[in-house]
C-alpha cells in the first residue's frame, strides 16, 4: 500500500499567514478505546509549552464503542472557551468521519487514519493520511493493546505537524503513566514513532503552529469536580452522602479519595469524616439533613434527576432550618436527557426546589477557582444561614480539564454559624430556636448532645412557634414565613457578589453566569471588534441577587441574559425580582448540549439588536 500524503491545495486564503498559538484541535475517536490518555498527553504538552489551553471532551452516555470527540483549544491570549470552528481534525472514527470532515471549514487540516481515506471527498482541506494500523504493529506486539497504542501515534504525528515539543510530549507521557513504567515505555515509543514517521513522510504545514511561551507558569490543569471536591475538603466537610450519577460521581469519588488520604487522624488512623454511598438520592439528601441537624458539615452531589428526587427534603431543610449542601452538576435535561452533555437547565428549579413557598441560596461558580472557593463557601453559608445551599456547576465545568491559577488556602477560619453551646445557654438560659434575635432573620440553634437541660428542641417541618412548639396559628405561620423571607434577604449581601465590568457610555449590558464566562468574554471582544458594540458585563455568582444587579440593569437600556437553557430561567428570575426593569431584559439562549461558544452569543445579540442599537 502506498503511504502517501494527500496534499490538497488550499483554495483560500491566497496569502496565508501562519496562526501562532491559536489552535482548535479536534480528535474524533470511539469511547473506551483509550484515546483519552493520548488526548491528555497532547493537552499537557501544550500546557507545558506555556500556552493557555483547554479541552472539551464530548463523550456518549455509554461505556464503550460510541463516538467521542475531544477538542483542544490553545490560545496565547487565553481565549480558550468553547469554539466550534476547528483548525485541525484528527479523524480516527469511521462511524463519524464523513460528518466530521463535512463539518470542517475550508482550509482546515485533517490527520486521518489511512483506513478512512475514502471519506475524504472535499478538496478544500489539507489532508495528512497516516497508516496507523501498520505503524502500531511496529511498536506493539500485543494485538489487544494496538487500538489503544495507535492513539498515541497520532500524538507524535500531531506534535510534528503542530510544532508541539517532543520533550514535553515525553514528559506528559511519563506523568500520565507514572505508576505504569511498562505502559510509559510503550507509549513513549509509539509517540516517537509517530513523530519520526511524520517527519519522514509528511510535509510541514504553515496554517497554524504552536511555540513555547510563558503564559501558564505555576498554573494547574484540573476538572471542576476535582476543584469542588478540594473545596469541600478544605471547607472542613465532615459528612458526605451520594448516589452515583453522571456527571457528578467524580465529585464524590474525588472527595472520598482525598478524605481517605488527608483526613485520617495522624495518631489513630481513624477517620474525621464519614462517606456513605446511599441507596438513592432521597436517602443521600436525608442523610445530609440528618448529619447537618446533628452538627456535621454535610454535603451531597448529584445532577438533575437527583435534584428532582431531593425536592421534598429541600423544603424540609429550608423550613426546619437545617444546614445542607447539594452540589448540582447540571447535565442536559429534562428527564434522563443527555447525561453526558452540559446545560444550565436546573437554575430556576433549584432556586425554588420543593413545593410551597421556598427559595434557596444558589452559588454559581464561573470558573474552576470558584468551584473550589464556592464549595467551601456553600458549607459555610449553609451553616451560617441554617438552610439548604445549592452549588450549581455543570458538566462543562465539572468534567472538562480547565486551566487555572492554583487555589489559595482559605483566608478565614471556618464559620459554624449561630450555634449555642451549653456554656452559651448559661445557668438557666432560655432559648427560642426560631426567634429572630439579631434582626437578620437567622435564629440560633443548639446541637444534639448539648449537655444542658434547655438545649433540646424539636425540629419539625410543620408549623412551629418561636420556641419550636407545634402550632397551626395563622399569625405565627405567617410571621415565620416572613422571617424566612427576611433571612433570605439577609443572604443577598452575604453570598458572592457579582463580578461587574462597566464600560462607560454603552447602552448594552450582558449578564451571564457559570460556565458561560469564557465564551461571553470572547463574545464581547468580537462584538466590539466586529460590530463596534461595546458592552458592560455582569457575571452573577449567586442567588439571591443584590442591589448591584439591580443597578447594573437599571444602568443599561438593553440587557442580554446569556444562559444555557431553553426557558430563559435566569431571565425569568430577574424579571420577577425587578419587574420594573423586566422590559429591558433580552435572552441569549443555547441548549443543544454543547458548551456555549462566543459565536452563538454574538450572532444572537446581533440578531436581537434593533437597527438603532447596532452598526451593521
Amino acid at each position, binding site marked *: 500500500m502506498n503511504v502517501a500524503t494527500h496534499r490538497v491545495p488550499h483554495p483560500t486564503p491566497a496569502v496565508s499567514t501562519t496562526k501562532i498559538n491559536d489552535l482548535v484541535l479536534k480528535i474524533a475517536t470511539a469511547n473506551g478505546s483509550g484515546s483519552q490518555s493520548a488526548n491528555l498527553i497532547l493537552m499537557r504538552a501544550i500546557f507545558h509549552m506555556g500556552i493557555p489551553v483547554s479541552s472539551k471532551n464530548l463523550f456518549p452516555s455509554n461505556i464503550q464503542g460510541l463516538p467521542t470527540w475531544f477538542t483542544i483549544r490553545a490560545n496565547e491570549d487565553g481565549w480558550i472557551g468553547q469554539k466550534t470552528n476547528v483548525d485541525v481534525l484528527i479523524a480516527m472514527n469511521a462511524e463519524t468521519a464523513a460528518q466530521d470532515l463535512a463539518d470542517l471549514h475550508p482550509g482546515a487540516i485533517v490527520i486521518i487514519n489511512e483506513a478512512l481515506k475514502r471519506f475524504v471527498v472535499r478538496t478544500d482541506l489539507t489532508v495528512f493520511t497516516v497508516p496507523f494500523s501498520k505503524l502500531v504493529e511496529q511498536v506493539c506486539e500485543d494485538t489487544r493493546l494496538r487500538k489503544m497504542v495507535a492513539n498515541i501515534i497520532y500524538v507524535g504525528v500531531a506534535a510534528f505537524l503542530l510544532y508541539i515539543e517532543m520533550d514535553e510530549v515525553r514528559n506528559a507521557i511519563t506523568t500520565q503513566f507514572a505508576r505504569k513504567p511498562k505502559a510509559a515505555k510503550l507509549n513513549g515509543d509509539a509517540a516517537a514513532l509517530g513523530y519520526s514517521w511524520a517527519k519522514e513522510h509528511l510535509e510541514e504545514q504553515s496554517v497554524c503552529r504552536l511555540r513555547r511561551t510563558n503564559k501558564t507558569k*505555576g*498554573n*494547574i*490543569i*484540573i476538572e471542576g469536580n476535582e476543584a469542588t471536591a*478540594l473545596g469541600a*475538603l*478544605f471547607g*472542613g466537610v*465532615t*459528612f458526605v*452522602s451520594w448516589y452515583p450519577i453522571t456527571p457528578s460521581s467524580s465529585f464524590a469519588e474525588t472527595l472520598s479519595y*482525598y478524605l481517605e488520604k*488527608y*483526613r485520617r*487522624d495522624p495518631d*489513630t*488512623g*481513624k*477517620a*474525621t*469524616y*464519614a462517606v*456513605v454511598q446511599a*441507596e*438513592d438520592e*432521597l*436517602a443521600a439528601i*436525608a*442523610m*445530609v439533613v*440528618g*448529619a447537618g*441537624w*446533628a*452538627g*456535621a458539615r*454535610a454535603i451531597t452531589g448529584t445532577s438533575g434527576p437527583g435534584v428532582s428526587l431531593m425536592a*421534598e*427534603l429541600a423544603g*424540609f431543610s429550608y423550613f426546619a432550618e437545617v444546614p445542607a449542601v447539594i452540589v448540582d452538576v447540571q447535565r442536559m435535561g429534562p428527564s434522563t436527557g443527555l447525561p453526558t452533555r452540559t446545560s444550565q437547565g436546573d437554575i430556576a428549579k433549584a432556586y425554588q426546589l420543593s413545593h410551597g413557598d421556598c427559595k434557596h441560596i444558589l452559588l454559581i461558580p464561573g470558573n474552576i477557582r470558584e468551584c473550589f472557593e464556592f464549595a467551601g463557601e456553600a458549607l459555610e453559608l449553609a451553616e451560617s444561614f441554617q438552610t439548604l445551599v445549592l452549588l450549581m456547576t455543570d458538566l462543562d465545568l465539572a468534567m472538562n480539564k480547565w486551566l487555572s491559577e*492554583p*487555589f489559595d*488556602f482559605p483566608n478565614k477560619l*471556618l464559620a459554624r454559624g449561630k450555634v449555642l453551646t451549653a456554656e452559651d445557654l448559661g445557668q438557666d438560659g432560655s432559648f427560642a430556636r426560631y426567634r429572630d434575635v439579631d434582626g437578620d432573620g437567622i435564629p440560633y440553634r*443548639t*446541637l*444534639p*448532645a*448539648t*449537655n444542658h*437541660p434547655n*438545649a*433540646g*428542641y*424539636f*425540629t*419539625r*417541618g410543620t408549623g412551629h412557634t418561636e420556641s419550636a412548639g*407545634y402550632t397551626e396559628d395563622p399569625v405565627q405561620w405567617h410571621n415565620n414565613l416572613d422571617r424566612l423571607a427576611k433571612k433570605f434577604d439577609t443572604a443577598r449581601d452575604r453570598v458572592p457578589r457579582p463580578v461587574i465590568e462597566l464600560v462607560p457610555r454603552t447602552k448594552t449590558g450582558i449578564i451571564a453566569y457559570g460556565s458561560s464566562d469564557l465564551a461571553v468574554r470572547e463574545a464581547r471582544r468580537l462584538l466590539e471588534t466586529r460590530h463596534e458594540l461595546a458592552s458592560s458585563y455582569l457575571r452573577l455568582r449567586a442567588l439571591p441577587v443584590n442591589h448591584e444587579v439591580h443597578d447594573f440593569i437599571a444602568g443599561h437600556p438593553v440587557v442580554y441574559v446569556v444562559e444555557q437553557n431553553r426557558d430563559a430561567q435566569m431571565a425569568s428570575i430577574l424579571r420577577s425580582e425587578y419587574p420594573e426593569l423586566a422590559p429591558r431584559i433580552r435572552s441569549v439562549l443555547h441548549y443543544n448540549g454543547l458548551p456555549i461558544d462566543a459565536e452563538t452569543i454574538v450572532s444572537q445579540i446581533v440578531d436581537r439588536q434593533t437597527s438603532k442599537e447596532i452598526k451593521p
Partner: protein
Amino acid sequence: MTTVMTDPLPTAPRDPKANRLGLVLKEYQGAESTLCAGCGHDAITSSIVKAFFEMGVEPYRVAKLSGIGCSSKTTNYFMGQAHGINSVHGRMAAVATGASLANRVLVSIGISGDGDTASIGLSHFLHMVRRNVPIIYVIENNGCYGLTKGQFSATADRGSVKKGGLVVNQSLPIDCCALAIQMGCGFVARTFSGDTKQVRTLLKAAIAYRGTAVLDIVSPCVTFNNHEGSTKSVAYARENEDPLHEIGFVPHYEQITVEYDSGTTKVVEMPDGSTITLSKLDHDYDSHDRIRALALLDKAREELLFYTGLIYYNGAMAPLDQQMNLVDEPLATLPESRVRPSRETLAEIMESFQ
C-alpha cells in the same frame, strides 16, 4: 445452672425515686400527647420513658428521630430535654444514618409507623438495617395509616377487615421482622404495646445493644383499626399474643448475681456486659437461629399467629460508625485543626495538578 455476674460498680441513686443519674421519671417525659385517647402509641411512649429512665440514659444524649404519622409524632411526647427531629414521611431511617454518623455519642431512637416504614420508607429501612446504623428503631405497627384516617397499610394482615366491615385486605402483609433478619439485623423483636413489661424489657435491651435494633410493636389504632375483624385491635392482640419466652434484662451496671436454670432459661450476654434472659414458656425457641426465626415468622404470617419476644439476636456485627472507623469524638464538633488540612497539603495537591 448459669451464673450471671455483672458490672460490680453500680451507681446507686440516693433519692429512692431517682435513677442512677439522680434523675426522676418526670425528666424523661415530654410534651402532652395529642393522640386519640387509648391509642397504642401512647402506651409505647410510656414504656420508652420508663425504659430510658430505668436505664439511666442522660436525656441530652438522646436523639429522637421520626418520619410522619401519628406514631412519628410521639417523639415529641417523651424526653423533652432531648433533641428531636420529626422529618419527612418515610425517610427517617436515612436521616438517622446521617445523624448517628455525625455524632457517635448520640443514643438514637427512631419511631416510625407501619406506613412510614413498610410503604414509603421500605427501602431506607432495609438499607439502614443492612448498614447496621446504631439505633433503636421502633415500628408502631397498627396495620393502617392512622394520621390519614385509616387506610390499610402494607402490614395489614391478609383477611383483615376494614372499619365499616366492607373491605377485606387481600394482600400479603410485609413482615418487617423477617425483612430485618434478611438484611442481617442482629436484634429483632416483636411485641405488643399493651404488654408493657415486655416492651420495656426489650427497649432496655435495645438501649444496651449497639447496632440496629428493630422492635416491631403492634400498637392498636383505636380510632380506625380497633373493630371486630381487625387483627391489630386491642382485643385481638390481647387474645392472640403468644410470647415466645419470658424476657428479663440485667444492665451491665447492676451488681447482681442471679442463678438461672439453664434448662428453662437461656442467657444472652451482650457485648457491653448486659444480659438478656429468655425463660421458657410454651415454646422452645432459640433466638439465635436465623432460619428458625424466618420459619417462625413465615408460619405466623400464614396462620395469623402473634408471637412476641426477642425473635432474633446476634451481637457480632459492628455498628456502622465502627465499620467506618470514625474518630472517637463526634464529627459534628471536631475543631478546625482536625477537619481542614494544612496549607502545605493544599500546596502539595496543587503541585500534583501542574
